[in-house]
């Protein structure tokens, strides 16, 4: 049975697209046929992070409007043949996505794919609403920072009341926390909310902590999802997250300063 995962946060700039690209690649590399969809209509960026920006011919809205078939619009990833990307449209029409159109496409994808990752835009407008509406699982990307935690909590309220599962009284969406841009050193100094602080407020199932890392910018510069940088801390954090999501036991890492510090000393990236 296919599962639809929404990567969401409310707040912008916390790492939704980075996360969507990384976990979609991670799932696909594990052998699961995966599609990743950019819901940020008008501000397409997943294509850049995935490094397929020059291969975009048709987009999500073309498929909804019947101007292209799903197979024409899906871009096969250059690094992994189990991974396909559906880019967002660059149209400025806010109503380009419709609930019916999105529902139809997801139904079609579910026949062929194991995982469908929906990269939500920031905010709580239509794109964000449609990205989460059909989801089975929600990855809440949160930074240890007041505005991000608040917006995540607001997003949780929306997931539990405005989603298809909520409206049809089905089993609720499974919600997971991904705490990103974490700096154990700053947490120790009392300058940053700790994992425990964030969990005291959100109390979600923790899928993983992603440390603040230079490798994320390097990855986006080169159009390679950071999970492919297997030596990097962020890449490893995302690999752990994919394993945990798939039900494997992985001890949590990157929470305490020591490890990061020693890794720095001994030449890790």
């Amino acid at each position, binding site marked *: 049975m296919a599962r639809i995962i929404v990567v969401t946060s409310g707040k912008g700039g916390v790492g939704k697209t980075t996360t969507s690209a990384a976990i979609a690649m991670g799932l696909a590399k594990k052998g699961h046929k995966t599609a990743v969809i950019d819901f940020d209509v008008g501000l397409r960026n997943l294509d850049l992070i995935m490094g397929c920006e020059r291969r975009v011919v048709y987009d999500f809205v073309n498929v909804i409007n019947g101007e292209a078939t799903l197979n024409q619009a899906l871009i096969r990833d250059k690094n992994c043949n189990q991974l396909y990307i559906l880019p967002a449209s660059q149209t400025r029409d806010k109503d380009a996505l419709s609930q019916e159109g999105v529902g139809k496409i997801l139904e079609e994808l579910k026949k062929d794919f194991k995982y469908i990752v929906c990269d939500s835009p920031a905010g709580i407008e239509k794109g964000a609403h449609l990205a989460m509406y059909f989801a089975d699982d929600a990855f809440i990307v949160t930074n240890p*920072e*007041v505005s991000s*935690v*608040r917006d995540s*909590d*607001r997003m949780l*309220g929306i997931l539990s009341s405005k989603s298809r599962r909520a409206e049809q009284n089905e089993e609720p969406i499974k919600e997971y926390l991904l705490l990103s841009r974490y700096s154990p050193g700053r*947490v120790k*100094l*009392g*300058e*940053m*909310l*700790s994992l425990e*602080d964030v969990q*005291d*407020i959100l109390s979600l199932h923790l899928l993983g902590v992603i440390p603040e890392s230079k490798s994320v910018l390097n990855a986006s510069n080169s159009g390679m999802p950071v999970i492919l940088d297997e030596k990097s801390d962020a890449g490893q954090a995302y690999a752990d997250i994919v394993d945990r999501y798939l039900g494997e036991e992985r001890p949590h890492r990157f929470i305490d300063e020591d490890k990061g510090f020693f890794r720095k000393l001994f030449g890790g990236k």
Partner: protein
Amino acid sequence: MSLLDYFKTSKTSTASLAKERLQILVAHERTSRNQPSYLPQMQKELLDVIRKYINVGQDAISVSFEQDEDQETLELNIVLPDLPIKHT
């Protein structure tokens, strides 16, 4: 550097300040999240009806919605004016 020292030595770190602020804010937002969206409009319409019969001020009426495990309570509170009401 002096600023950094200040945060290091002060009893309450900025992180604990952040947590405290968030806890209060999030608790508040969660209670208002569960309120039905028709509440403000209903309050306005109720006020209009009451004012047809009784001369009360804009703030004479308060509507609150509370929810616990097994019941929802809608509380309507109208403050009547001190002056005796003239019956015609």
